[in-house]
């Protein structure tokens, strides 16, 4: 933020100048004994001060830190679970503070809304002030220009009126806005014409742009939170899903998103391929993933195909689809005691922490007769036996096996709460196999007592996709760029004023005094600009004097009829 919120100390502020000579506002002093209105006004002024805005901005940044350090409910629910098990004492406290869902926490919203109010409270008055200052004229030229930080004095063989007129033209050509004695208030200084010039209004525009854009960033983020959504879907190779609530595994809609607002696109995973480094110290590290998908943006629309890779999302219908993970789905066929096929499907197994895609999963067969069947097990893509324990030596499926434990009984699926497809509730079930049964592709596990058969018929890959729709993304980017532009403008452009006075000399010429003033000269440069401007004024005046001397050698410049300085001059808009 820049130095825009200090009107009291700002000699360039039109509004502040209007206040010159008035008693200071009581609200600016300590608020003691002011009553409710006074306190409210004081609080509002504090809230909209730059200091508080900076504190809030800082708090916003600090507040989002736990959002990136701690696992978040919305993006990583499993991580939160994990945190609970590893930090059983700390996790409930963090949860009370909303640190597992920072961006939805009330305190985060409070910071956000206060910052918003602070910016609105700053920008709205600022807009009025800018408009006021854009319409107001530069101040009258001070009497003693030599006291200004930059000044020059010289004599020219030109009458004071003419000298000032020449200066006006020169300044106007540089884009200065001018003020002459006749323009506003006060009597013309007897015998000493002057002109005030000011430029650099772009600084205020930059300032305003910065604040408006910052406001825009906040609005954009809010827009994303209200109208955006995020969803996850696990998709097995060869299957299709549509972006509707019932087809998604997880849906985190914004506050104003209804199910009908989801994009009507459909995605089919045709093929997924992953390759891994086969040797060297990097053995087992992925070298590439790519998912060949086909999609339609809307039902009946043209079918497009796309190669989805990590960091190469698909943009479809205003949403972005990211490839975020993959795994194996072993295909099982289960027949029940009556010999009927009651299950035949690829079943996604989820890789755990043991590495190399050793994955866990469950098979639920709720319609097996006479009893429901359930299986828990692991899928090992490259199985090796390490001291009687199955381990995976490589992430690619070079020697795929499954190892399954069978259960029979009540899966709990005919009533009660919905279940996770990755967990088997064995409370109502009886274990059928004493030890896990290892199966290779094509092998079967015969259940004891003729309860049925489980056959491991093969495996297919799956991918997990994250779908995000953030309508605030583009506006946030545009606003971010605008904020940067505004900031640069306000840093690089200076408000600067140049005053010119001319006093008649005894010899018919005049003494010209030029004074210059700039608000902040941190970046330097005004000194040189002023010097060159003063030089230019002098040479222009001398050229005019020479031109005047040639055609009309005897004329008296001081008594020229055209002495009304503002006639024929248009108002020059300051840049």
């Amino acid at each position, binding site marked *: 933020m820049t130095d825009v919120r200090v009107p009291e100390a700002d000699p360039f502020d039109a*509004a502040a100048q*209007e*206040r010159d000579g*008035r008693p200071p*506002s009581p609200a600016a002093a300590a608020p003691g004994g002011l009553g409710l209105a006074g306190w409210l*006004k004081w609080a*509002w002024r504090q809230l*909209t001060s730059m200091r508080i805005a900076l504190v809030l901005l800082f708090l916003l940044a600090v507040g989002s830190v736990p959002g990136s350090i701690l696992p978040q409910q919305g993006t990583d629910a499993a991580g939160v679970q994990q945190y609970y098990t590893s930090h059983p004492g700390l996790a409930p406290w963090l949860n009370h503070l909303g640190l597992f869902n920072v961006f939805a926490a009330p305190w985060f919203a409070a910071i956000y809304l206060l910052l*918003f*109010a602070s910016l*609105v*409270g700053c920008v*709205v*008055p600022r807009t*009025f002030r800018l408009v006021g200052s854009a319409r107001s004229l530069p101040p009258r030229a001070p009497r003693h220009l030599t006291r200004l930080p930059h000044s020059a004095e010289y004599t020219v063989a030109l009458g004071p009126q003419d000298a000032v007129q020449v200066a006006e033209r020169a300044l106007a050509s540089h884009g200065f806005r001018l003020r002459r004695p006749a323009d506003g208030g006060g009597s013309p200084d007897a015998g000493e014409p002057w002109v005030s010039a000011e430029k650099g209004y772009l600084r205020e525009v930059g300032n305003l742009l910065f604040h408006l854009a910052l406001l825009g960033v906040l609005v954009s983020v809010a827009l994303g939170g*209200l109208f955006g959504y995020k969803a996850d879907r696990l998709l097995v190779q060869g*299957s*299709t*899903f*549509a972006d*509707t*609530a*019932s*087809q998604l595994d997880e849906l985190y809609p914004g*506050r*104003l998103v*209804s*199910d*009908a607002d*989801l994009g*009507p696109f*459909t995605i*089919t995973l045709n093929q997924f391929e992953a390759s891994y480094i086969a040797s060297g110290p990097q053995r087992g590290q992925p070298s590439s993933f790519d998912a060949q998908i086909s999609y339609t943006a809307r*039902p009946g629309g043209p079918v497009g195909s796309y190669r989805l890779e990590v960091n190469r999302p698909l943009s479809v219908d205003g949403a972005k689809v990211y490839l975020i993970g993959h795994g194996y789905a072993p295909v099982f*066929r289960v027949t*029940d005691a009556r010999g*009927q*096929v*009651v*299950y*035949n*499907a690829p079943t996604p197994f989820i890789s755990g922490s043991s590495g190399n895609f050793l994955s866990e999963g469950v098979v*639920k*067969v*709720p*319609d*097996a*007769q006479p009893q429901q069947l359930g299986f828990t097990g692991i899928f090992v893509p490259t199985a090796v036996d390490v001291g009687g324990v199955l381990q995976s030596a490589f992430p690619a499926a070079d020697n795929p096996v499954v190892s399954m434990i069978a259960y029979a009984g009540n899966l709990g*699926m*005919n*009533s*009660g*709460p*919905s*279940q996770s*497809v990755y967990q088997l509730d064995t409370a109502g079930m009886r274990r059928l196999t004493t030890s896990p049964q290892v199966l290779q592709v094509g092998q079967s596990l015969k259940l004891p007592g003729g309860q049925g058969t489980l056959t491991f018929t093969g495996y297919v890959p799956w991918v997990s996709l994250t779908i995000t729709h953030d309508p605030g993304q583009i506006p946030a980017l545009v606003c971010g760029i605008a904020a940067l532009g505004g900031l640069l403008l306000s840093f690089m452009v200076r408000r600067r004023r140049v005053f010119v006075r001319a006093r008649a000399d005894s010899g018919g010429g005049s003494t010209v005094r030029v004074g210059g003033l700039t608000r902040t000269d941190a970046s330097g440069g005004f000194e040189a600009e002023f010097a060159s401007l003063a030089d230019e004024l002098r040479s222009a005046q001398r050229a005019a004097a020479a031109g005047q001397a040639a055609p009309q050698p005897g004329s008296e410049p001081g008594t020229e009829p055209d002495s009304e300085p503002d006639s024929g001059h248009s108002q020059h808009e300051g840049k």
Partner: protein
Amino acid sequence: MFRGKRRAVVLVAAVCTGALLAVVLLAGWASGGSSGVSYLDGNTNAVLYAAGHRPLAPDFTASTLTGSRLSFSSYRGRVVVLNFWGSWCVPCREEAPTLAVVAEQYQRAGVAFLGVDVRDTTASAEAFVRNFGVTYPSVSDSSSQITLAFTAAVPVSGTPTTLVVDRTGHIAGAVFGQATYSELTAMLAKVTGKTAG
């Protein structure tokens, strides 16, 4: 003069903030209201659409679990109960016996029942149908296009969802979530003008 201006500016800022909040709140408010919709016994999951406000059910053609092609438009002229289900879905399994009973009761009244099997495989779906004695046909929505098409008409946000489609092919009632016997029979009585027989 200046203080007055300052006060006006503060006022404008406050009004702007207030207006923004109001817009956000109103946007939330407005999304709740619409006309022609009533709820069965005040249950917002059981929705009745008044005549003239009934969304048109989209047509579809799909394969049934037994492999034949079925076109939804062939049901035009009959009241149809369309049930979105999956063998993996706990409330679908819970409501399946109820649906089987109601289907049988309303068969004579000319009401057709049709299942839409969602996120399922043929083997599991067939086992479900056998297990619960479901006599009406189901189509497989393996490409999700039926769900998608109906979502545009009514918010089919999950399974189970049960829609009652009138004789003109318009959706007259919807149960989002597990349907009960009383909800189904009340809706069918309204749409067919007949009670269970």
